[in-house]
C-alpha cells in the first residue's frame, strides 16, 4: 500500500539540507548519502548523488524522469549471479 498523500513525501532532513546547499552554491560535487529512503523531488534534478548500497557508494545522476522514485531504487544492494559466471574471469 502506498504512503498516505496527506503526509506528503519523505526526505531525510539531513539530505534536504545538503541538497539545498548544493543548489545554492551550484556545486557539481556528488552528494554522499546513506538515505536511500528519501524521495527524489524536483529540486534534486541535475544533481549527482552517491547512494550507499550497504557496501559502497553508487553514482546516481538524477534526471527528470526519476522524480517520485526513491534514491535507493537506483543503487542495487544485491549482486546478480548467473550460472557459468564463475567459469569466466
Amino acid at each position: 500500500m502506498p504512503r498516505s498523500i496527506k503526509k506528503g513525501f519523505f526526505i531525510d532532513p539531513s539530505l534536504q539540507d545538503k541538497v539545498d546547499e548544493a543548489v545554492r552554491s551550484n556545486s557539481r560535487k556528488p552528494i554522499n548519502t546513506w538515505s536511500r529512503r528519501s524521495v527524489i523531488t524536483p529540486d534534486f534534478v541535475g544533481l549527482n548523488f552517491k547512494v550507499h548500497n550497504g557496501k559502497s557508494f553508487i553514482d546516481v545522476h538524477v534526471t527528470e524522469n526519476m522524480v517520485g522514485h526513491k534514491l535507493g531504487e537506483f543503487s542495487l544492494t544485491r549482486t546478480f549471479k548467473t550460472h557459468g559466471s564463475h567459469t569466466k574471469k
Partner: protein
Amino acid sequence: MPRLLGVDIPNYKKIEYALRYIYGVGPARAAQVVAETGIDPDTRAKDLTEEDLNKITNAINEHKYAVEGDLRRETAANLKRLQAINCYRGLRHRRGLPVRGQRTSTNARTRKGSRRTVGVMKK
C-alpha cells in the same frame, strides 16, 4: 458483426460481456457503460443499432478511458520509462523477473516462463 472503437468485433454475447473484448474494458467498466447508456442489458451485440454503438463509444470517450492502442502505448511507455532510468523495477522488467518483491528461488513461473535447465559448464 458490430465494430466498436476501431477494430473490436464482439459477437453473439450480451453487450455487457461483449464489451469486455475491448482491451481496457473489464467487468466494472462494461457494467458502468451499459448502465449509463440505458441499453437493455439483454441485447446481443449483433442486435445493437447504430445509435446504440454511438452511445457506447461516446460513453467510453467521455470517461477518458484509455482503451486499445492508447492503453497499450501507455503501458509500453511506462515500461520504457522504468527501464530508461535504470531503477530497480526497470531492471526486473529487463531481466523478466518478478518486479514486486516476490520470491524467485521457487515459483515465479509466470514471469520466468517455462523451466529451462541450466547445466554447469566445466572449466
